[in-house]
């Protein structure tokens, strides 16, 4: 397998234009590509649309983008542990779409695997149903939840090889392998980058062909 040329974190973040939509891995900041986020903050890339599980806490992961007021819209399942997200939402400077966590990840998965959407029972009869189509399948009601895609997926792995194969550690996996399927450009960082062949085929979770750019370490 051919090695991909790693790029610097500066060059990686420079690819992201003002107003880009970003899927960002991580759950409360665990498994988030912090170095890419730090560089976006340094560059002050504005008007971002962030699709992620949550907005972490101030000063951590996506919380840094929120704190620097670089985000115009968040699509997430939970913002409760970041008071700054709530402050900007109430002030009207940040649009927030709250989506049930299982629905959010399935909408992203659908976007990555060529489906138009998914049918889920979650949200039936609640405010989540507003504006959505209800579809009965064999007598059971479901909501039609449409697929989500983004311009970029910012992925963080535990191991990457120089071909771009990725594997994850413990609860750092979360949204990462799913968003790696659902964006036009996939940029990955990893705790460790190892020679091709070190990650056994059975342990590769995200195949190299999905990764467009691997950010060099150090």
């Amino acid at each position, binding site marked *: 397998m051919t090695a991909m040329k790693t790029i610097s974190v500066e060059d990686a973040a420079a690819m992201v234009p003002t107003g880009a939509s970003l899927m960002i891995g991580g759950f409360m900041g665990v498994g988030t590509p912090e170095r890419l986020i730090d560089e976006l903050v340094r560059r002050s890339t504005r008007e971002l649309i962030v699709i992620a599980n949550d907005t972490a806490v101030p000063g951590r992961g996506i919380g840094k983008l929120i704190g620097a007021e670089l985000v115009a819209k968040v699509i997430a399942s*939970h913002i409760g542990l970041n008071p700054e997200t709530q402050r900007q939402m109430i002030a009207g400077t940040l649009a927030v779409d709250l989506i*049930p966590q*299982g629905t959010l990840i399935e909408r992203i998965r659908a976007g990555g695997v060529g489906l138009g959407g998914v049918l889920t029972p979650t*949200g039936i009869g609640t405010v989540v149903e507003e504006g959505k189509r209800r579809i009965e399948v064999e007598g059971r009601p479901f909501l039609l939840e449409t697929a989500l895609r983004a311009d970029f997926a910012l992925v963080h792995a535990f191991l990457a090889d120089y071909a771009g194969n990725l594997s994850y550690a413990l609860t750092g996996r979360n949204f990462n392998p799913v968003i790696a399927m659902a964006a036009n450009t996939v940029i990955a960082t990893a705790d460790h980058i190892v020679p091709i062949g070190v990650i056994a085929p059975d342990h590769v*979770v995200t195949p190299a062909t999905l990764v467009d750019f691997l950010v060099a370490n150090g």
Partner: protein
Amino acid sequence: MDGQIIIAKRIARELRSGMLVNLGIGIPTLVASYVPTGVAVYFQSENGLIGTGSLPEEGMSHPLLTDAGGQPVSALPGASTFDSAMSFGLIRGGHLDLTVLGGLQVDELGHLANWMIPGKMVPGMGGAMDLVTGAKRVIVAMQHTAKGKPKIVKTCTLPLTSLRPVDLVVTEMAAISFPQGRATLLETAPGVTVGTVLEATAANLVVPSQVGEMAF
């Protein structure tokens, strides 16, 4: 006994060996501390872990091993990790035997509201809607009243978490179940009379001729 411990201990008695169980944050998390001797359950963290253990000892935490609140946890031998699509597939797909969640209101049909107070608290539903919709059994762990106002009401005034009714509500005063879809007083906490429970409850509560006392 502290009210929260009464709730946690009573709910822990619902655990059976081999169950896959998801505990919400707050009082539900306490349930893990009172698993009966001889009962072995699997705890799931919805951020992608089955086999969640206790708080790690000093020096034994790992930055990539956390619970759904982002706090360090341990993983028991035999634990497994997976992505969020798998995690919610387990929850929605009928693979989760029990979820224990906090509550803001439960109404007399068993509907739960636990994710927002319009104009005051909008944290997002996180995994709550999927958990209540998909788990085989749903137990609510909450205080019976909030600032003296009943939380068990005729009809929820706060936005619902799911149309699926919960199975059991445990408070520091009572255990309430929903046979035939009606809120029914199952047990009272030690030292609490049926009258006291009814006074603190706004829902029409079915009171059977025999109401047991919570045992732990």
